[in-house]
């Protein structure tokens, strides 16, 4: 066999870079040292990790997903998965976009042993036994064995490894606005940006690579390179100088969302761009040819070799074979020769180039030209995992080769089989792909308004046409944005032939890779269709083609062709799978941005913290659950009981600022409240409060509060802490239909509030309250007054959630801390003590009050929870009225009951089940030990026939133990409500 033997001192010679102007990206004055797989290497600032490794003669960067085949860079543009490596704290990093930094230490990933000697390589030898979708055909017999196989397979799957302590560091987001966003700054993008900017539009030009110019920075457009070099310099200079153009380089436009909402990732920032119009000049992906061992390190796209030379001043190898299906392979061959690479063969799959002069040019360089030939197989030496030679065969038909073989030694193969438009953003926007059989290319159409495609993404490849097409797209954008402009016609001339229609040559021994990410060969795709997975979407799902990190950039086109042929359909009918965002893999840190953890604090929050309160989340708020520091290190239960006892015996204060507050004003205010809530409110007197429960259209109780009538046309209603947002929203929604003459305002955070409760509450208030006669006669239970607490104007509500003499005080929130301090100061000798949510829960339970959301669920209607009294069934309408009526007429399914157990019993937990024999008849919703009653008390849903006091319910507690509880009348404590009405 004709095999290329590398020179002995490869490592020394390969570090020599080509002379300028090659290497536009690197700074030869700034050497960088780094390690790969523990071996030290050197490169330059401006290198990527991959380019620096290639400069050191190292092509092997990774191991493939399934067969652990050695892989090296394919595109050198971050568009393939072959360059995924492991940084110390980050898996799956693209070595061909990762900038080289001093001291960088990198390893390969997904191997056993070392990257160079991966023990898992033996999996490749088993490929015959791993047909497409092999995992569907095995590992399940006898029943249950998948359990043992799966962990083994999982361990082999996956690529890199997470560092569990990794800190992604600071990331943020910013908004940008533009008239025209141009994606891609190749010749079409540059020209489009200039034309749009000249026309008066504010332009944002987004370029994924470090510099402007796209293919102009690395590709060759003709034998004479001067014109394209001049074009690049001119366009870039003009763009950079233009006031109307903002540039974002090293920035990836990663998606197209409706109305030109574009996420653009640059550095550690996610820009969210709102553009009025968008021109996608994203270029086209150079496509590999498909032959046996086309994945060996050293086999790359022609554009990759050109990038190596022009961007990094690296000679791709010593002896090259160029395989081409278009004229670009000829131009690449000229580049290689000019940079001192011996081109052993130019293998053209066609009979002749489109541009006949190119044939003469390569022959003038002494390059051997093979027409209508292909590479049938590539060889490599196991020792250094790099291509060492190729076997050429004449092409005998579509995908078929003749017998005559030519072996050629080489250490690099450059492929140029055609192009696939970078259609991802356009397809996300709804663009449709169609295949032209004549040019063997996909084209895109059906774009939404103000989205345009230009350049090679639009099927133009000749430089002058690409530039013209950029200008054309910009004139269309300008016109559609209302500028006066003559819209240019599309570039004229014949269709360009840049795609070889069938660059795929099946080999009897396989390993001709269609999808490098997933190790899929020609037969895998065809066999998927033979198994019956004929739709390209099913082929994808069955074979996993296109599902890997490169998301089908190089596999979509051959897959469409193979599936079309295998199922006897056109390529257009076959199509490609849906392109979904993101365009390129995006780190989650970019999507999350800065870490925000918003939560709400009441105006008295600082005081609670000073008191050592244990805080708990309540909706978006933080509320004191209990105050442990008051008596050392008390656990929750004892705090709760002590605080509760204090309220029953003396006086306590609780911050209720989180309660929702909604003001309803206007001539129809009473009518509005009357429709929203179940009770009657039309005749609610001014200066009185009234309980207000709310049902939805299904008759389910969804919120409650207190309605305060401040004036004929002015109500202030409270709502639950977590429910007020919903309540407010639904009020607005209803009134959008009703059109009642009211203003509705959510004033929750405009007020701070406390509840002062306990036998000494009036005594306390008398010390600080002015403007209100606090006597029981003048200010009875359920009364509402306006007055002052110290100097703070306040609403005073006599309500009794905890069942003691109590006042709810609502003050403007800026007085919140003042209110707290004033009361605490005045209550010192009364032993005023703050209590938290936990004590409040116990106190209200002793009174049998339900908490909406805790004692109710998504089905609870008023009659089920003993709230029939809060429903006015004489009024004509309230939201949910019809449903409530129907529910009331049905036999009840369950009922919320109060139950009691001796304090020595096992205590049911909230959520435990109530059983009726083997049937679940309900569940415990609230349960506490009541020190006041020295008993366990609770609320539970039970069978309706168990609803009367004196009956018993069975509850299954922790560990399966059942207890039988007495159903008792509510409230548990102070049944005649004498205490709260004092």
């Amino acid at each position, binding site marked *: 066999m004709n095999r290329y033997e590398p020179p002995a001192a490869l490592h020394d010679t390969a570090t020599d870079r080509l002379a300028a102007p090659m290497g536009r990206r690197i700074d030869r004055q700034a050497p960088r040292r780094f390690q790969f797989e523990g071996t030290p290497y050197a490169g330059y600032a401006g290198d990527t990790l991959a380019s620096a490794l290639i400069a050191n003669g190292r092509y092997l960067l990774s191991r493939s997903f399934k067969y652990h085949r050695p892989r090296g860079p394919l595109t050198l543009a971050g568009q393939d998965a072959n360059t995924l490596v492991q940084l110390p704290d980050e*898996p799956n990093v693209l070595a061909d976009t990762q900038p080289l930094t001093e001291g960088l230490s990198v390893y390969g990933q997904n191997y056993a042993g070392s990257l160079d000697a991966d023990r898992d390589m033996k999996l490749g030898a*088993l490929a015959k*036994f791993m*047909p497409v979708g092999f995992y569907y*055909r*095995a*590992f399940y*017999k006898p*029943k249950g064995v*998948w*359990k043992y*196989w799966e*962990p083994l*397979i*999982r361990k082999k*799957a*996956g*690529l890199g*490894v*997470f560092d*569990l302590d*990794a*800190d*992604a560091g600071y*990331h943020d987001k910013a908004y940008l606005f533009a008239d025209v966003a141009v994606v891609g700054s190749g010749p079409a993008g540059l020209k489009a940006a200039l034309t749009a900017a000249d026309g008066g539009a504010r332009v944002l030009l987004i370029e994924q690579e470090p510099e402007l110019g796209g293919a102009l920075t690395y590709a060759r457009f003709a034998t004479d390179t001067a014109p394209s070099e001049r074009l690049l310099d001119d366009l870039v200079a003009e763009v950079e100088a233009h006031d109307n153009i903002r540039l974002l380089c090293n920035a990836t436009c990663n998606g197209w*969302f*409706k109305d030109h909402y574009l*996420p653009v990732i640059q550095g550690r920032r996610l820009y969210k761009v709102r553009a009025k119009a968008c021109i996608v000049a994203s270029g086209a992906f150079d496509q590999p040819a498909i032959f046996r061992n086309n994945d060996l390190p050293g086999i790359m796209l022609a554009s990759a070799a050109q990038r190596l030379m022009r961007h990094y001043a690296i000679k791709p190898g010593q002896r090259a074979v160029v395989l081409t299906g278009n004229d670009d392979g000829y131009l690449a061959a000229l580049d290689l020769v000019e940079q001192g690479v011996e081109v052993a063969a130019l293998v053209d799959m066609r009979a002749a180039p489109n541009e006949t002069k190119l044939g003469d040019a390569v022959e003038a360089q002494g390059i051997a030209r093979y027409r209508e030939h292909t590479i049938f197989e590539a060889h490599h030496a196991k020792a250094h995992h790099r291509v060492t030679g190729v076997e050429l065969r004449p092409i005998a038909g579509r995908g078929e080769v003749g017998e005559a073989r030519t072996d050629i030694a080489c250490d690099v193969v450059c492929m140029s089989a055609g192009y696939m438009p970078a259609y991802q953003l356009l397809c996300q926007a709804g663009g449709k792909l169609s295949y032209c059989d004549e040019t063997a290319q996909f084209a895109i159409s059906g774009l939404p308004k103000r989205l345009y495609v230009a350049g090679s993404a639009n099927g133009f490849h000749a430089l002058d046409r690409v530039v013209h097409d950029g200008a054309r797209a910009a004139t269309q954008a300008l016109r559609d944005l209302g500028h006066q402009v003559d819209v240019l016609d599309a570039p004229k001339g014949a269709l360009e032939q840049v795609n070889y229609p069938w660059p795929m040559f099946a080999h009897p021994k396989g390993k001709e890779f269609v999808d490098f990410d997933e190790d899929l060969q020609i037969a895998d795709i065809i*066999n998927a269709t033979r*198994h*019956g*997975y004929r*739709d390209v*979407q*099913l082929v994808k*799902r069955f074979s996993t083609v296109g599902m*890997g990190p490169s*998301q089908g950039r190089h596999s979509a086109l051959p897959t469409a062709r193979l599936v079309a042929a295998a199922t006897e359909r056109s390529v257009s009918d076959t199509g490609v799978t849906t392109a*979904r*965002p*993101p365009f390129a*893999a995006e*780190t989650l*840190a970019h*999507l*999350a941005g800065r870490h925000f953890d918003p*939560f709400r604090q009441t105006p008295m929050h600082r005081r609670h913290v000073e008191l050592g309160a244990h805080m*708990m*989340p309540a909706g978006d708020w933080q509320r004191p659950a209990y105050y442990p520091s008051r008596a050392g290190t008390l656990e929750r239960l004892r705090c709760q009981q002590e605080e509760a006892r204090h309220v029953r015996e003396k006086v306590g204060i609780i911050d209720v600022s989180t309660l929702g507050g909604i003001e309803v004003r206007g001539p129809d205010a009473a009518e509005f409240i009357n429709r929203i809530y179940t009770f009657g409110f039309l005749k609610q007197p001014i200066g009185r409060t009234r309980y207000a429960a709310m049902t939805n259209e*299904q008759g389910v109780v969804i919120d409650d509060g207190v309605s305060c009538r401040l004036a004929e046309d002015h109500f202030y209603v409270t709502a639950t802490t977590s429910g007020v947002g919903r309540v407010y929203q639904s009020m607005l929604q209803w009134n959008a239909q009703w059109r009642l003459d009211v203003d509705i305002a959510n004033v929750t955070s405009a007020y701070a509030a406390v509840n002062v409760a306990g036998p000494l509450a009036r005594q306390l208030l008398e010390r600080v309250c002015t403007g209100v006669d606090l006597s029981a006669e003048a200010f009875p239970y359920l009364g509402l007054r306006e007055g002052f607490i110290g100097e703070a104007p306040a609403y005073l509500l006599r309500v009794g959630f905890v069942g003691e003499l109590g006042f709810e005080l609502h003050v403007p929130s800026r007085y919140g801390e003042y209110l707290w301090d004033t009361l605490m100061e005045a209550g010192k000798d009364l032993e005023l003590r703050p209590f938290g949510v936990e004590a409040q829960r116990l106190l209200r339970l002793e009174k049998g009050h339900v908490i909406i959301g*805790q004692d109710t*669920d*998504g*089905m609870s209607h008023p009659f089920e929870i003993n709230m029939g009294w809060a429903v006015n069934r004489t009024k004509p309408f309230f939201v949910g009225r019809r449903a409530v009526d*129907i529910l009331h007429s*049905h036999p009840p399914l369950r009922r919320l009951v109060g139950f009691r157990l001796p304090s020595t019993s096992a205590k049911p937990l909230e*959520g*435990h*089940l109530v059983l009726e024999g083997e*049937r679940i008849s309900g569940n415990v919703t609230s349960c506490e030990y009541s020190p006041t009653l020295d008993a366990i008390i609770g609320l539970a849903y039970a069978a309706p026939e168990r609803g009367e006091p004196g009956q018993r319910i069975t509850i299954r507690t922790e560990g399966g133990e059942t207890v039988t509880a007495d159903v008792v009348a509510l409230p548990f404590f102070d049944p005649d409500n004498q205490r709260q009405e004092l």
Partner: protein
Amino acid sequence: MPFGLLKYGLSSRYPAEVDIPPPKALKSSYDVVIIGGGGHGLAIAYYLAKYHGITDVAVLEKAYLGGGNTARNTAVIRSNYLTSEGVRFYSESVRLFQQLSNEFDFNIMYSERGQLTLAHTDGAVRAFRQRAEVNKHFGGRTEMIDRQQIRELVPTLNLDPGHLPVLAGLWHRDGATARHDAVAWGYAKEAAKRGVEIHQLTSVEDVVIENGRLTGVKTNRGAIRCGCAIQAVAGHSSTMARKAGFRLPVVSYPLQAMVTQPVKPFLDPLVSSSALHCYVQQTSRGEVVFGGGSDPYPLYNTRSTLDLKESLITSGIEMFPFLAKAKLMRQWAGITDMTPDYSPIMGASPVQNYYLDAGWGTWGFKATPICGKTMAELIATGKTPELIAPFCLERFDHFRQINEMGATAASH
């Protein structure tokens, strides 16, 4: 080397078993027409053929097999619901799932990883305890676990995200995942083997109703007469029902999900957080899948949005901070038919001979086997199996809803 793979390596010609037969002409009449070739429709066809000997069946799929929500869901299988009806139904589904690989002779990769749902509030602890109790009552393996147990189960999880520390967890040992596509293919393969016809690229444009009875359907490939028809078109339940002349209490919302590049295994159970509206699991390929709540507005469009991606990923990183360095690869959406009580609608419809397999919101995949089996029984015998009787459409007329709202939010 498992025995099942030897034939591929040792035989000279590739032994391509045909899982899905190639297309053929539509007949003019079938006993049963199933509208929708997703997991559900194919399962009904399979069980009709297997248990009831009914094989003159056509499954009509407007696009490709299993390409709707079967393809788009995140493959969570669980039975830790809240209501007795729900738990009984889904528990049976889990039991059927466990057999499917061997029943199909096709590995659906059923993987019992367990599902952990995190409670960050007292309310969630309460609701989870109830779910655990109901589950245990019906023989399920579900329990409340504390922070220490969570830490042992998922050492990589952050137990103190922001101001919402994890208080407890609902550990559902029966929670599982499977290769969702393979479930549909397995049903298709076994149904086809028994004579069922599967027609892709065949959309039902209208139904033919004579005197209140369904007699046929009109497709893009011509009209078909049939003894009865079943709609199994998750994501378009209400539009299909409208063609049959009635309304369903269904509002459709997009539901999005996303997946990262593959990495080596770090997470076994399926983990979800009700407060963060996010669930995370790692597939057997190593990809990390994120899912969350539905979009906040009704829509029949499977577009992706940036907003949802941002908020979902923010939550995901709260749960697993090191995922900040993971790389998102793909984002997609399905359409969920939400019912008022977050339970499905199965059984008869107002049109005679027209059956409903609808309202599958975010809970359709996990019900595939049991729904197929019971619906097949209903069609074959005319009697509604007890297991699905509570899920009839009339329950909405009678306010007999089966409320699973709390047991479905963001844990799918």
